[in-house]
C-alpha cells in the first residue's frame, strides 16, 4: 500500500494532502496547478514535505516527527514522468536495463525481453528515443519504471503529451497491464475521462487540498460539494433551499430530490447534463413532477452529441442538456424551440452549501 499525509508550504498555497492506495489505482484529479504533481514528487522523495508521513508497502519512507527521509533511490517506486524523459543517449534496451544494476548480463537481457514483450515494444530494442514516436517512448518509459521490483507505481500525467488516438491506446494498455502489475498505482491527471477510466478511487484536489476522496462512482455521481461537482464536469449546479421532506425549491420551482432537506436550509443541487431529459410540450398540458417548460437558447453540435442550453419559461432554472445524436434526430430537436425539461429524481444530487 501507499499511505500519504503530507504538508508543504508553496508559493500560491499550502499543500495539505491525505490519501492512501491499496492494491488499486488511485487517481489524483484536479486542474493544473492544484498540487497533484507536487504531491507525487513528495511521495517519490523528489520533494521534501515540511511535515507529515509517507508509507510505501510496510516501510515508513518519510516521517517528519521521527526524522525519517528515505532518499528516492531507496523508496522502490516506479515513476513515470510527464516529460517521458527517456535517456536520449541510450537505446531502448539500454534505457530499460538502466536500473538493472545488480543483475548479471544474461539475467538482465532476460528481464529486458520480458518487459519488452509485456509492453509490446520488442522491435524497438536498438532504437534511440529520438527515433521513436511519443507513444512508443512512453511505453519504453513504463518498461523502464517497471524493470526493478517496485512497491508502487506513480504516473504523472502519463499520456498528456500524446495525441488523442495514442492516449486512448495507452489508456487501454494500462488497464490491461493492471492485471500484471500487482502494486498500488497513483496516477495524476487533469483529464476527466482518463480519471474515470483508470481509477478505482479518486482524490479530487484543488489549491493543495483534497476536496473529496472516494470510490470513482461516488465522486462522479455524489460529489461532496459544488466545487467537486464543477471540477468533475457536472454542468448543472443550482443554488436551492429545502421545502421540508424530500423537496427543494430551485429558481421558484419545486423539485423532488432523493433525500430530505429541512425547510429553509440552503443547499446545492446538481445534475449531469446527460441525465436531463427532454419531452415534447404537447404530450400533455399537466406537467409531471420535476418538469418545467424551457426554450432552447443555444446549441452546440459535437458530432456524436449535442449540448443544448435551455432557459425556463416561467419558474425554473436554466439548464444544460446533452442529447445523443440519435434521440436528437428522433425527437426532432432541431425543429422546435420549446420543450419540457425533466430532472429525474434519482439523478438529482443534494450537497451541503
Amino acid at each position, binding site marked *: 500500500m501507499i499511505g500519504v499525509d503530507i504538508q508543504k508550504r508553496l508559493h500560491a498555497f499550502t499543500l495539505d494532502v491525505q490519501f492512501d492506495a491499496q492494491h488499486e489505482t488511485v487517481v489524483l484529479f484536479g486542474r493544473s496547478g492544484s498540487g497533484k504533481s507536487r504531491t507525487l514528487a513528495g511521495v517519490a522523495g523528489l520533494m521534501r514535505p515540511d511535515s507529515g508521513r509517507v508509507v510505501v508497502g510496510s516501510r515508513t519512507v518519510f516521517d517528519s516527527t521521527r526524522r525519517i527521509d528515505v532518499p*528516492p533511490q531507496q523508496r522502490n517506486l516506479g*515513476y513515470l514522468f510527464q516529460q517521458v*524523459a527517456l535517456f*536520449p*543517449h541510450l537505446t531502448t534496451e539500454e534505457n530499460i536495463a*538502466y536500473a538493472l*544494476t545488480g543483475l548479471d548480463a544474461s539475467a538482465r537481457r532476460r528481464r529486458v525481453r520480458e518487459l519488452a514483450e509485456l509492453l509490446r515494444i520488442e522491435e524497438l530494442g536498438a532504437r*534511440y528515443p*529520438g527515433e521513436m514516436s511519443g507513444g512508443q517512448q512512453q511505453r519504453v518509459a513504463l518498461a523502464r519504471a517497471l524493470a526493478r521490483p517496485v512497491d508502487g507505481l506513480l504516473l504523472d500525467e502519463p499520456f498528456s503529451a500524446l495525441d488523442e488516438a495514442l492516449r486512448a491506446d495507452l489508456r487501454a494498455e494500462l488497464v490491461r497491464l493492471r492485471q500484471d502489475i500487482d502494486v498500488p498505482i497513483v496516477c495524476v491527471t487533469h483529464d476527466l475521462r482518463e480519471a474515470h477510466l483508470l481509477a478505482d478511487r479518486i482524490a479530487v484536489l484543488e489549491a493543495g487540498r483534497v476536496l473529496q476522496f472516494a470510490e470513482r462512482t461516488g465522486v462522479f455521481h455524489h460529489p461532496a460539494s459544488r466545487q467537486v461537482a464543477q471540477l468533475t464536469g457536472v454542468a448543472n449546479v443550482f443554488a436551492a433551499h429545502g421545502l421540508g421532506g424530500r423537496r427543494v425549491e430551485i429558481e421558484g420551482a419545486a423539485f423532488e430530490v432523493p433525500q430530505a432537506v429541512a425547510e429553509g436550509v440552503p443547499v446545492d443541487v446538481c445534475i449531469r447534463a446527460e441525465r436531463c431529459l427532454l419531452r415534447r410540450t404537447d404530450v400533455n398540458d399537466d406537467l409531471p413532477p420535476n418538469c418545467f417548460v424551457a426554450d432552447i437558447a443555444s446549441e452546440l453540435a459535437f458530432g456524436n452529441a449535442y449540448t443544448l442550453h435551455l432557459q425556463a419559461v416561467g419558474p425554473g432554472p436554466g439548464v444544460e442538456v446533452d442529447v445523443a445524436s440519435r434521440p436528437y434526430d428522433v425527437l426532432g430537436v432541431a425543429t422546435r424551440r420549446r420543450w419540457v425539461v425533466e430532472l429525474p429524481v434519482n439523478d438529482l444530487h443534494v450537497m451541503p452549501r
Partner: protein
Amino acid sequence: MSTNSAAEHPRVVAVRRAWSLGWIFASPSLLFGAFVLVPLIALAIRGWQDGQVMERLLSPFVLHALRLSVVTSTLTLVLALVFGVPAAYLLARGRFRGRQLLTILVELPMVLPPTVAGVALLVAFGRRGAIGAALVEMGIEVSFTTTAVILAQLFVSAPFLVRSLQAGFEAIDPTYEQVSATLGVSELRTFLRVTLPLARPALLSGAVLCWTRALSELGATLIFAGNFEGRTQTMPLAIITAFESSAGLSGAIAISLVLLVVASILLVVARLAQRRSRGSS
C-alpha cells in the same frame, strides 16, 4: 543538413528573403573572412618559399619546444579535467551561497591579461612567494621549471573548460537525474552514466578550447616560468626567441606553421567529434 531540409520544403518566399539578407551581410562577412585568411595563406606561402621549413623544424631547438608544448598542454588538460569537471557540476547544480560570485571568479582569468596572471603566480609560487617559500623549504622549486609552465597554462586555460562545461550541465533537464534517482541509481553513478554523457558536446568543445589556449599560452609562462630551452620554452616562446635571433622572421615562420597545422587539425577533430555525439542523441 540545412540544404537538405530546404530541398524537402521548397518554400520559395523564405529562401528569397534569406538571400536578400545574405547580400547585405555578404560584403562585411567576405571582408572579414579575407582579413583572417590572407595572413594565414601568406604564412603558408612564405614558409614554402623559404624552402628550409623541414630543416628548421627538425632542429633540436624546435623539437624541444614542440615536445614541451605537447607534454605541458596535455598535462594541463588532464589537470583541468580533474579539477574542472567537479567544479563545473557544482557551479551548475549546486545550491549554496556565493555560487554566483564563484562563477564570476572562474571567468576572471579569461579576461585578465596573461602577463598579470604570470606576475600573480610568481608572487604566490616564486622562491620568495607566500606558498613558494614554504615549498622551497620542502625542497620543491616551482618557478622557472616545467611545473611552472603547466601551472601558468592551467591558470589561464582551465576557465574555458569550466565555463563551457557549466553551461553544458545547466542545459541538461534535471528531470533526467530525477528519473535516475527513482530508478534506484546512486547520484555518482547517475552523474557518470547520464549527466556527463549528455554534456559530452560541451565537454569536447571545452576541452578543445582549454587545450588550444594552453598550447598558445605565452605571457604568463614567460613571466612565471621564464624562457629556457628544453625546460620552459614552449612553441610560442620559441617563436619569439627565433624571431629575435639571427634566423629572424624565417625561423618564426617555420614554427608558426607547425602551430597553425596543429590548431587546424584540433579544430576539425573537435567538430567531427561533436557532430558524431549530436547524431547519436
